[in-house]
């Protein structure tokens, strides 16, 4: 479980079959530390399934997931978390009966810190997302937008080397989405992690991501910089039909 700076996450030729449905087919992508990769695609294109496969919540039918040289394919989620992969969920999953601080602290404790150190790190994570003042509030009493922040703080508290965000901007208005952008932009530099973000908020994705990976019906249709992807005819077709020339953002 060394956290070498040279580590890269390799997702190699992942195929995932559900009963009667191929959710992912031969998807390959690589995520470096310090970069923000956007994973986009129409609904049902397999984005969340890919996150679930990488973080151990689903076992792939074929393919491998490696962190550096370490093969973590098929490991249970808690072991994958210990390697340094953290995630949020599309439908927010907080520990609603615990306080906000406890929610975040438990992630730091689970990364192996003693409780007083875990508390410091949890307060640091809450500061990153601008939620320090919520520390003593029960998580079940939070408004929706704050729930998102706390979930991201919880993912940060273990100081992950790779962070997976599943639709963090869902349900946010333009202003809140801008605040999210401000919050996410400096992360890779500050904690040196690689971020994989899934979202439909193109305004956010285009301004945040260094690179985009586009899925449709479980297959990769293109990968490149935001500018390249916006002009890719296959992407435009998948999103908007064939008549448009460029993706709006």
């Amino acid at each position, binding site marked *: 479980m060394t956290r070498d700076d040279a580590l890269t996450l390799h997702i190699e030729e992942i195929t995932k079959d559900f009963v009667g449905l191929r959710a992912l087919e031969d998807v390959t992508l690589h995520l470096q530390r310090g970069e923000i990769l956007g994973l986009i695609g129409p609904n049902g294109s397999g984005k969340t399934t890919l996150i679930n496969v990488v973080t151990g919540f689903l076992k792939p039918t074929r393919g491998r997931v490696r962190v550096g040289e370490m093969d973590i394919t098929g490991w249970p*989620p808690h072991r994958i978390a210990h390697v340094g992969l953290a995630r949020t969920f599309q439908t927010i999953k*907080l*520990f*609603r009966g615990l306080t906000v601080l*406890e929610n975040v602290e*438990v992630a730091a404790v*689970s990364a192996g810190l003693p409780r007083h150190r875990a508390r410091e790190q949890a*307060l640091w994570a809450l500061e990153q997302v601008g939620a320090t003042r919520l520390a003593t509030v029960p998580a079940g009493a939070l408004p929706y937008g704050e729930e998102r922040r706390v979930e991201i703080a*919880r993912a940060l508290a273990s100081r992950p080397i790779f962070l997976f965000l599943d639709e963090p901007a869902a349900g946010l208005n333009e202003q809140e989405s801008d605040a999210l952008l401000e919050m996410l932009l400096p992360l890779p530099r500050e904690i040196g992690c690689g971020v994989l973000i899934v979202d439909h908020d193109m305004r956010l994705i285009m301004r945040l991501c260094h690179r985009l990976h586009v899925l449709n019906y479980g297959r990769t249709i293109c990968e490149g910089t935001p500018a390249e992807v916006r002009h890719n005819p296959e992407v435009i077709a998948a999103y908007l039909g064939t008549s448009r020339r460029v993706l709006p953002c």
Partner: protein
Amino acid sequence: MQRMSYLESFGKWSTGLLLAGPLIVLALVVHLFGGEVLQRILTVLFINLSMVLGLQIFMGNSGVVSFAPIGFMGIGAYASALFSMSPQAKAMALRNLYSWLVPIQVPFVVAVIIGGLMAALVAALVGYPLMRLSGAAAVIATFALLIIVHTVLINWSEVTNGPRTLFGLEAYTTLWVSAATGILFLLLALWFKETPLGLQLRASREDEAAAASVGINIVWVRWVAFVLAAFVTGVAGALWAHFITSFSPLAFYLPQTFLIISMAIIGGSASVSGAVVGAVAVTAIFEGVRGVENAINISAVFPFTVSGLTEVCLSIAMILILIMRPSGILGSRELRL
């Protein structure tokens, strides 16, 4: 921030004080001024409190309903009896006892700890597969475990005297022994909740997927709590055995199970305060109604004997709580200053 943490640690200690203080005062008052009956009631109250705390440690923190504890109580009771009884008493009460066990006699405290450890050992062995279950499956599996332990106790006559009563134990458990143990377990339960493992366990109660995603090994943290809880319950069983001094396997079955679970439900099993409040409230209802029942029968108000009033009142109390405050009187809150 440092200031806040001092205040907070005082807050945590204050829970212990607020709960243990009145209990100690109660024990003291009853010890000085109470009669024999009141002393016996309070002794049983503290033993039951220990068992509810065992339930709180596992069920309260993990959210997994367990019907197994009273089985562990039985294991603790019989195991401690085998080590505390004199060779003469064993020869009288357990004619078929394995000969190597007959001469072994250890001090009461050691016997009680052996009782707790035996319960913990059984929990450790059966716990690993069991801890993968939650919800209805856990209820059924732990209920099955209770039945299995009961069946073994009834049929392993070499060490339990079968379905017949085991007698000849010394009454070592005084009010002070049971009160000290109950308060020790109270502090243990408060401490355990706040350990890293206790925090992880409470997180897994709230959301299993999120817990796994932050690196919590749910089966492991549940297993540790299950074994610790079995130890606590086993010790409580050992104390009860040396209070009542003669008992049969029937004592460790459904009525006792429902009594302890009703204490946890009425008080609120998610908090240690709830466990204490539940144990005290249910004992008060139970003993109060029993007194009324006795008075009615003695004064022959009705031409027939009234019985079962305690169970009826307890059931009504439980139904009311489940309707009005499903998470118990205190829910997951702790009393604190």
